[in-house]
């Protein structure tokens, strides 16, 4: 909590160029809660400082401080916040307005909510130019097209006239970056600029920021993702609970971390290297034994044959979102489906669960008809297939505490509890199985953390004792260390219970870590499938190759 947290930059990070931004002993609090506890750092022209941390580490608050947007009820204090010789500690609202956009550009995570839906993209990009009195209407319009072109937006004249919702996520993010660099600010603060993006688009956006850095812009990159950071950062500050626990060159922090927390974060990243190992430190009493998989390749528990799904859009045009997809899921196996947004992987999962009806093709469950039978007939076999969603909270009835959620699920199984006491006892056993305790029975899911909620969702899926669990992006909303624990839990449960997973994710690292075999989907089609090792080692399809090249890796740092 004291000045001991102000870690001095090591000798290797010293630079002849003077610092553009110097922050010393920055503290930010909301009410009684101090969320940034005296951190110091510098940013140099043409360099990139990455601030890495998990939810609640204070990294986003730090970013917002640098643009004077900490929000209502915040209290900021610092010994020094200098931007090119200007003391920002005393800046008034009006002075901040002249700094933002001109001196400091700010890129936010979600371009869809950061851009005004009712205004044209071009007007949004021109906004900083207009506010700072740059040129006239016509010259601004020309500049906007130049900017959009510079950030790699195709057909910039057309896109400038469209509205944000008409653009894809990647294009919106690029428009946002264009607006942040419109006035060529010396410093760009990017808060999770690629988190909402697909991996190939993420690579393009990172390249864009790298190009900006080459031109001499100083970049402060806020991210929870160490592999993204590896691609861009020169220096890395690792934050935890409002303090910088480690600071150093990107190479040193990512390859030779000094602090145990950094090491744990790095270990928690799933990738090709982590297959068959635990991501999080094992709990007491659990030895880290290599896994023994018992996969029965003669017995498909779930079999999809030539699935096709056609949706009709509001414009009455048919769109084929799943196109001739066939696969087998064997007992005890994890089959990964990987693809970018819009590839049809979630629709495929929903068809497998018989929650969406396929336009043609069918699904067999334990070699018996499943998708083709009536909903009433399905109800009696539903207990054999469970589901875990990306957002567990919204999949729980908001009025129900954990115990009721589990009891309800237990009742749908083949051995429904005969009494309330038995239901409760079995709910407790389920909670213990997923690493929670009896105390959580009475808790409302709203009061649980993200990881705990996903554990409850797993317990609920396990309650009817299914042989198959469909996991639809089960860890995408979680911090990397929590993700590691949840992935470990899923693996342990598979070893213990022999369940099969149909595991859907956009994250190639997660897919590689978890899957025995993988399916790669693009535009509704299965472009590649095979053993995970084989596909990752020698991808046959150009799209898979592109995905793998785009994947940020620590090894490239």
């Amino acid at each position, binding site marked *: 909590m004291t000045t001991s947290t102000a870690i001095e930059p090591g000798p290797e990070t010293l630079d002849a160029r003077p610092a553009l931004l110097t922050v010393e002993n920055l503290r930010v609090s909301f009410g009684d809660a101090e969320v940034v506890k005296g951190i110091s750092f510098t940013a140099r022209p043409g360099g990139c400082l990455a601030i890495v941390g998990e939810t609640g580490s204070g990294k986003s608050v730090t970013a917002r401080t640098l643009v004077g947007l900490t929000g209502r009820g915040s209290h900021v204090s610092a010994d020094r916040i200098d931007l090119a010789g200007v003391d920002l500690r005393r800046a008034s609202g009006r002075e901040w307005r002249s700094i933002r956009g001109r001196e400091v550009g700010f890129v936010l995570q979600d371009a869809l909510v950061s851009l005004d839906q009712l205004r044209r993209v071009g007007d949004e990009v021109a906004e900083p130019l207009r506010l700072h009195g740059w040129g006239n209407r016509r010259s601004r319009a020309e500049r906007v097209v130049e900017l959009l072109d510079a950030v790699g937006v195709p057909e910039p004249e057309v896109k400038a006239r469209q509205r944000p919702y008409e653009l894809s996520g990647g294009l919106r993010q690029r428009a946002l970056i264009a607006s942040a660099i419109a006035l060529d600010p010396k410093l760009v603060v990017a808060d999770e600029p690629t988190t909402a993006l697909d991996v190939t688009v993420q690579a393009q956006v990172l390249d864009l920021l790298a190009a900006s850095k080459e031109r001499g812009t100083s970049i402060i990159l806020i991210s929870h993702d160490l592999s993204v950071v590896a691609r861009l950062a020169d220096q890395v500050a690792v934050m935890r609970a409002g303090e910088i626990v480690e600071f150093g060159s990107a190479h040193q922090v990512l390859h030779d971390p000094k602090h145990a927390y950094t090491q744990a974060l790095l270990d928690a990243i799933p990738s090709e290297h982590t297959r068959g190992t635990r991501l999080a430190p094992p709990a007491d009493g659990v030895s880290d034994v290599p896994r023994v998989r018992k996969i029965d390749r003669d017995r498909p528990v779930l079999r999809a044959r030539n699935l096709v799904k056609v949706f009709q859009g509001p414009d009455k045009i048919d769109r084929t979102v799943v196109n001739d997809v066939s696969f087998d899921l064997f007992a005890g196996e994890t089959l990964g489906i990987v693809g970018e947004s819009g590839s049809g992987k979630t629709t495929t999962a929903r068809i497998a669960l018989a929650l969406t009806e396929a336009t043609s093709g069918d699904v067999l469950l334990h070699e018996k008809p499943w998708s083709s039978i009536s909903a009433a007939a*399905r109800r009696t076999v539903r207990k054999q297939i469970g589901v875990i969603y990306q957002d567990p909270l919204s999949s729980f009835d*908001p009025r129900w505490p954990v115990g009721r959620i589990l009891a309800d699920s237990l009742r749908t199984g083949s051995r429904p509890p005969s009494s309330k006491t038995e239901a409760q006892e079995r709910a407790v056993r389920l909670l213990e199985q997923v690493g929670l305790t009896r105390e959580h029975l009475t808790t409302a899911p709203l009061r649980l953390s993200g990881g705990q909620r996903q554990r409850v969702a797993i317990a609920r899926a396990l309650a009817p004792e299914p042989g198959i669990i469909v996991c639809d992006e089960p860890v995408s909303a979680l911090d990397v260390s929590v993700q590691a624990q949840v992935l470990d839990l899923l693996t342990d449960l598979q070893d213990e219970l022999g369940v099969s997973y149909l595991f859907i994710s956009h994250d190639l690292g997660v897919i590689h870590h978890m899957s025995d075999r993988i399916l790669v989907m693009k535009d509704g089609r299965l472009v590649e499938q095979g053993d995970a090792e084989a596909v990752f080692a020698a991808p046959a399809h150009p799209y898979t190759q592109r995905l793998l090249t785009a994947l940020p890796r620590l090894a490239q740092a």
Partner: protein
Amino acid sequence: MTTITLPTVVRSPDWVRHLRARPTTVLASLVVVVALVAAFAPGVLTPHSPTTIHLQQTLRSPSWHHLFGTDEAGRDLFTRVVYGTRESLGIGVGATAIAMAIAIVFGFTAGLVGGIVDSLITRLLEVLFSFPALLLALLVVAVRGPSLETELIAVGVGSAPGYARMVRGQVLNVREAPYVEAASALGHRRRTVIRRHLFPNAFRPLVAVMTLGVGQSIVWASSLSFLGFGVPPPSPEWGALLDAGRDFITTSWWLEILPGLVIVLLAIAVTSLGRTLQHKLEGAAR
């Protein structure tokens, strides 16, 4: 699952703190409590009788003895206001309940059945909605003739279309909620899902809306009475008091102003409580 209840022990101090931070809520609760006492035990608040006529004390202005003054028949106005609370509040609550009942039937049918039924109900509601609520209410009075029951039904029918649209929207909202699908994915029957998830969750936000509606209904009922289409005299219902005092407005201001203020006060209090409830429920949902 008897053991599963929310840890209210932990939450109640929170609640008390909220109340302290919101003096409006405390004041509003106080007004409603006084109104409830007036409705169920009017004798506690006033020693006089609402109907006893004192011809030697007509149209006295407010004084210590007659807080709200007296009317043209010498009756104590404060007492009449107190005794009128039961009818006014009753109409407010009753009419809202009627409106809600109608709204739930139509809203849930439209939202759950969908298709052509939904289209028909929605169109019908839109037609009704395009009439001012008071006009709908007057239509009911015209058909049935003025009485207490008519007033209840009139105000209820008048405000039902608005609620029905809200109920339908809620049902559509909750129907698409992931937890409803999750329940189906567990293998529950459709009617179990509707009973256990859809109904309670769609209904929850309406509780606050209903409370807001009570205040509105009180005002509308008073409007009807004021127009002479409400409870016939000598009832001390508040709108009727206003109607009766209209002839003396130039000489005896208190006959209009004071009952009017009481209507406004109770309507504001109930509405304010409704808002608080709404915020609480919305906060709890997310």
